[in-house]
């Protein structure tokens, strides 16, 4: 069964304290691995798409990487405004649906 698992569930960081969020997937025929940011009361906001192992994408303080089994979202020198829930989703071959993980709730303290 296709599945996406994220860890940790919650993470508290001091401002400037870099860390990584993990997304493990067992998705047959992965056509894309997506990272989204979700603020309270809002919908998921698209961040990155990764297609193949070894690929990396960067945006400001965020960098996403992909291996054959997992993806990491690295946050370098985070700021309080990076506080949000980060969602990972997989798209399988022959389907239109995203399979989401439960997310990591990130809190960055000033």
């Amino acid at each position: 069964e296709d599945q996406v698992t994220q860890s940790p569930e919650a993470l508290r960081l001091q401002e400037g304290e870099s860390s990584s969020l993990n997304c493990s997937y067992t998705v047959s025929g992965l056509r894309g691995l997506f990272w989204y940011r979700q603020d309270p009361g809002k919908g998921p906001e698209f961040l990155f798409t990764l297609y193949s192992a070894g690929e990396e994408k960067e945006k400001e303080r965020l960098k996403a990487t992909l291996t054959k089994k997992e993806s990491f979202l690295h946050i370098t020198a985070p700021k309080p405004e990076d506080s949000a829930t980060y969602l990972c989703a997989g798209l399988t071959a022959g389907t239109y649906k995203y399979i989401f993980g439960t997310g990591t709730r990130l809190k960055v303290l000033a």
Partner: protein
Amino acid sequence: EPEVTQTPSHQVTQMGQEVILRCVPISNHLYFYWYRQILGQKVEFLVSFYNNEISEKSEIFDDQFSVERPDGSNFTLKIRSTKLEDSAMYFCASSEGVQGNQPQHFGDGTRLSIL
């Protein structure tokens, strides 16, 4: 930047009543989706829609649910005879296509509360 808009932001309905959730997808997008998120749980796929027909649906999307694109801009989700367990956040999404480089873009959701 173009965005997906959803109305209403919050809907309160008595159990057994019908409810219609509305969405305006991004204008040049061709694929439309509904997801739901029960409080504290994962975002779950309900249905995808393309070329005026359902292209895929989950086991959650039973006869109680229906989708429609009544005109060139709106995309609706109807829930007939609502149940308490239908209480959730419902997200609409749209995409240009279904390739990996054509991500789904989400609205801010409708919080549906069934009393």
